[in-house]
């Protein structure tokens, strides 16, 4: 199991260290500093073995978090734990920075004591942790016996993510379908790979212990319903077209996985407040919001001509926002002249790229940029690697085509029904890695 956890600043100074196992000595702290943080070469692996001791590390801004062990631990678990630890810390004191870590070192020790026992991850749900580990000292001494047992049963219980007795005057929930669409396109416009990774994020402000059921236009469910249903004939043409094939999805731990496996229905008791209900991935019939058409021409040894056209490919009534096209330039660029039809374009020497920004763009439009790049003559034989042109944007629809069909709320003990709950649904599609080779 996990033998110890060290947190270092960028210089390799230890900010926090906690050792859980006897086989981990103090020298492990230095071994990691010397061999990884101060290593001359770039880190080639997130897992390092130094003298039969294994180190797992992740970096958050300037901070290194390292787990050390001498055993054959579950490596996936260690990384999941490190991410979780970062989440927990962030939810307690914001950004993970040297200053914040120093300011909260007592809190971090307390968390480390609670989240890991003998190197075994225990409860790491921020919601329940916050009921008994607080920044204002521990509540412990002021709690009544009932409160105490409520804490312990929540921490260890079946529904660890939600406490009983939550009350809201207005029962309300917000659903955000957040998608990031990824594309790799060849210079000729051939889709090399494309996929959407989406998340359904829910903010729930519901009283009691509500039972929820979430439905979307998942092809498998709709086909299933279509087969058994009566409205088969009429519904088929529309539902068949609108349903989407989900390659795979994963769920928050509140979702009953066995039920999803057998009936493909998504039912759960939601945590209170904001959380991620599910993640999914699709690869078929993706709406690619933009198409990038690059044209790079080398004019002699010291000049490059670049022309890039972008075309928006969605309903004209919708507006894309925060559009940014990043055109890489060679390292020996001496000057750039840019002309663009829309938005602003700048050559950023420090980033070796021309950055073209457009605030808004409606669907089915087209825009163009052309640039002349002056190059310094070099005798470097190696060719310029021509990194791909990348794009960023945000669109108000789900590129996967996912639609929320319903989210039903049942709470039998309290007197509110599904109709009384105010529900909001929003779709946001963002660019993930959206690249076109040139």
């Amino acid at each position, binding site marked *: *199991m996990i033998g110890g956890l060290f947190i270092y600043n960028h210089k390799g100074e230890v900010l926090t260290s906690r050792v859980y196992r006897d086989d981990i000595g103090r020298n492990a702290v230095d071994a990691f500093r010397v061999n990884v943080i101060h290593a001359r070469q770039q880190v080639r692996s997130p897992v390092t073995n130094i003298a039969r001791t294994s180190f797992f590390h992740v970096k958050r801004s300037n901070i290194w978090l390292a787990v050390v062990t001498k055993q054959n631990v*579950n490596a*996936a678990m260690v*990384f999941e734990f490190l991410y979780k630890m970062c989440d927990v810390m962030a939810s307690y004191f914001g950004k993970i920075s040297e200053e914040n870590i120093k300011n909260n070192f007592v809190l971090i020790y307390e968390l480390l004591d609670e989240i890991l026992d003998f190197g075994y991850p225990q409860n790491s749900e921020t919601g329940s942790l916050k009921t008994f580990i607080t920044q*204002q000292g521990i509540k412990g001494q002021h709690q009544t016996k009932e409160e105490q047992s409520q804490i312990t049963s929540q*921490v260890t219980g079946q529904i660890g993510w939600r406490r009983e007795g939550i009350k809201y005057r207005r029962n309300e929930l917000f659903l955000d379908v957040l998608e990031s669409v990824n594309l790799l396109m060849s210079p000729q416009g051939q889709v090399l790979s494309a996929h959407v990774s989406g998340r359904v994020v829910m903010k729930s402000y519901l009283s009691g212990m509500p039972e929820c059921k979430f439905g979307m236009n998942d092809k498998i469910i709709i086909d299933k319903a279509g087969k058994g249903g009566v409205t088969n004939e009429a519904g088929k043409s529309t539902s068949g077209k609108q349903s989407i094939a989900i390659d795979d*999805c994963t769920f928050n*731990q509140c979702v009953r996985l066995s039920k999803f496996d057998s009936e493909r229905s998504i039912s759960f008791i939601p945590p209170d407040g904001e959380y991620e209900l599910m993640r999914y991935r699709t690869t078929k019939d993706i709406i690619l919001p933009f198409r990038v058409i690059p044209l790079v021409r080398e004019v002699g040894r010291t000049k490059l001509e670049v022309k890039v056209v972008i075309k928006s490919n969605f309903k004209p009534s919708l507006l894309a926002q925060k559009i940014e096209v990043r055109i890489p330039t060679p390292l020996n660029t001496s000057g750039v002249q840019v002309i663009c039809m829309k938005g602003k374009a700048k050559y950023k020497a420090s980033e070796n790229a021309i950055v073209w920004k457009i605030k808004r763009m409606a669907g089915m439009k087209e825009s163009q940029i052309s640039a002349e790049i002056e190059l310094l003559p070099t005798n470097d*034989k190696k060719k310029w690697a021509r990194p791909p042109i990348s794009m960023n944007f945000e669109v108000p629809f789900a590129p996967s085509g996912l639609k929320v069909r319903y989210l039903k709320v049942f709470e039998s003990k309290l007197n509110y029904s599904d109709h009384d709950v105010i529900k909001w649904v929003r779709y946001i599609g963002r660019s993930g*890695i959206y690249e076109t080779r040139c």
Partner: protein
Amino acid sequence: MEWANQLCENRQFGSKMTDSKYFTTTKKGEIFELKAELNSDKKEKKKEAVKKVIASMTVGKDVSALFPDVVNCMQTDNLELKKLVYLYLMNYAKSQPDMAIMAVNTFVKDCEDPNPLIRALAVRTMGCIRVDKITEYLCEPLRKCLKDEDPYVRKTAAVCVAKLHDINAQLVEDQGFLDTLKDLISDSNPMVVANAVAALSEIAESHPNSNLLDLNPQSINKLLTALNECTEWGQIFILDCLANYTPRDDRESQSICERVTPRLSHANSAVVLSAVKVLMKFMEMLPKDLDYYGTLLKKLAPPLVTLLSAEPELQYVALRNINLIVQKRPEILKHEMKVFFVKYNDPIYVKLEKLDIMIRLASQANIAQVLAELKEYATEVDVDFVRKAVRAIGRCAIKVEQSAERCVSTLLDLIQTKVNYVVQEAIVVIKDIFRKYPNKYESVIATLCENLDSLDEPEARAAMIWIVGEYAERIDNADELLESFLEGFHDESTQVQLQLLTAIVKLFLKKPTETQELVQQVLSLATQDSDNPDLRDRGYIYWRLLSTDPVAAKEVVLAEKPLISEETDLIEPTLLEELICHIGTLASVYHKPPSAFVEGSRGVMHKRLPARTGSGEGTECPDVGNAAGGSAPEAAPSIIPSQGDLLGDLLNLDLAPPTTAGPTPSTSGMQMGGMDLLGGGLDSLLGGDIGGSPAMGAGFGAAPAVMPASLNAPVGGGLGDLFDLGGGVGMPMGAYIPPKTVWLPAMKAKGLEISGTFARRAGVIQMELVLTNKAMSVMTDFAIQFNRNSFGLAPAGPLQVLTPLGPNQTIEVSLPLSTVGPVMKMDPLNNLQVAVKNNIDVFYFSCQYPISMLFVEDGKMERQVFLATWKDIPNDNESQFQIQDCHLNSEAASNKLQGSNIFTIAKRTVEGQDMLYMSIKLSNGIWVLAELKVQAGNPNYTISLKCRAPEVSQCVFQCYEAVLKN
């Protein structure tokens, strides 16, 4: 007081509070000051002081001097202060065990606290204090906490048992905590179950044979129920534990799989990977024609792909595991090639792993896409990545025949870029392509030759040289090219030197007329001017081959090469099976078994996949045969040998031609010399510079180790033939005389070669020597001396070489030996160190004599004496051996043995089995009694040896074997 108030205020504004000030105290009298503060009456001041202490501890300062003062702060109802003090205790208790006792009372009291959080905190901390005296006091509170009404306390106590076990395993067993822990598996609270499972799994790992976890269908059912309810971490513990279970049959296996598959949709990647592990393992037991088997295969792909959208570190872990899964079950991901395409900003470790998997998944269906990608990667910046991409193109050519042409042209394009490392890498893979598709792409050789000068890496140089040598007949200036390499011969790496040597010999065999000078040059460079034994030896082999039989040389050197296989870097099947059982863990990341990187007993136990037969017996720890059965259906693909193996190849080639091709005694000696190259290394080269070439050792001890098959296989290889030859030389029914072997090769003795053997003729031990002068000058004044040895062997007279030994002359000498020389025990027992002097120098070598030389003629014991002696010698001195593949009946065996003074005293037949009782007397009076069991129709004999000096048994057994098989 004011300061304290201010501090309290600060606390209330939570966010403004800063702990960082604790890090900044670096005054001189710090410890002293802290001491005063710790003993302050004011609670707040105390707390602040403890915080400062902890801060100092964190940055590595030694604050152990404050131990008593900090422990004094423990008695408090302030939980935050208590936690800090506990933290301090965990760190320093070990260095101050006596002081730590002071804390015990508080712990015991806290374990009774009404607040479950405090009870749990106390038991959790106590387990972390690794002081024996404290552990004793821990038992009672722990026992109570294990049965606490509050699940939070129980789940903490469960882990505490594992802590205690780590400190004092015996105590845990004596106190019966293990049983209590087992009971917790049936606890109503899922987290308690999960922690109990984790604790038990860990304890069980250090007791590999205990049936601690006692997994049975009932307990498995409990675990599967808890699996649905517990935290993500608990699910991992349970799944990892489940993976150790072996279902009784395929139905149970399927039902567990069905209940585990929903976990594949969990948001936590570790849960997913652990579930994959269980499924991959249990799938082994499902019949392949089952519908469910196909369904399961289909279900595995999407979650594996989803893992690739996780954070990069997890992607890396996932990719390392997918690499294993793809090798074990390629069908799962065969349609998912695209997801492994490298993204421009993937971290390098992800890129390299993706590339690995792309090569494995490449097939005719997707090769076009793959190639386009690889070509793209070959222009990236990271050198390692580019190299791997180039290499991958070559792999594709070898794997998918239809694509070979395109791959070759892509590689040629890359060579045109003139980027040094790209060119070199391309040449290395083109060599393999040549081997795979002979007579197809040789037209590109010209292009390759243009790049000779830019090659500065050994592997690329070696590859190029190989190409030139292999296709010497097509390259007009092959001799010039090779000659140009030869100029800096001694600066080259071994790899290049060896390759160059072979290439020039090939060239010579192909164009003997023009290249005689060149080949002589390289042979002398390799044999005379080199310090590298591999190079020298290879040089000598070629030299002798070429000088004795050029036709044979051609057959050996230009032999047809074995086919190159399609897959590379495949993990060896048994290791792969073990790694599949470790999916998700470090072992799967390193691709090494846990024993390779874990110290001590943990994880040393090797895990295996269950066999497909659904029977329950022996599945916990299947034997070798069973495991082999499991892996048999997949034909093990052969693997391209790396450059380093070429020497091995070569030697194998040397042994391969059957000796029936006209063996004469002299060539037999040479063959044995060749074998020395194999065996020599195994026999100790006896301290000092007595670099002997123990021929006998090669024949008896070492050779079987090199070619284990030769003893078992009925068709004995070259080795068996050699023994036959040796037998032919000696007397048919007389004492066994081993064939002559080279004891001292000419190159070690300035041209004097000594080969020989030992014989016992008419009661006299004789050393029969053949001296050959391979030098240019005459040798005279021979003398011989032995070092002290186990049986006091010494020359009974001078070495009778009366005439001077001229160049290329050979003389046979017989040297009678006595057994009255000084005695010193040798290792091995029958080792003999010899010094031979002539007019040039003194030479040392060592050889091993068959101990049967020492079997005296009056070794027949009286029956009664035999019986009494047999009983008298303690059973500990008895050793048993197997003689395999001996096709003599007991009569013939007895006769044959008698020739070597092994006397049969009695014979008994029990149930078709002949028992021969025999006695042997050694020259120094040691008696050896033997019982030989011979069963009609069974070629394997069993022999039991009893002797008061059991050391000799091994040597005696060797003699039995040698005598019986000749």
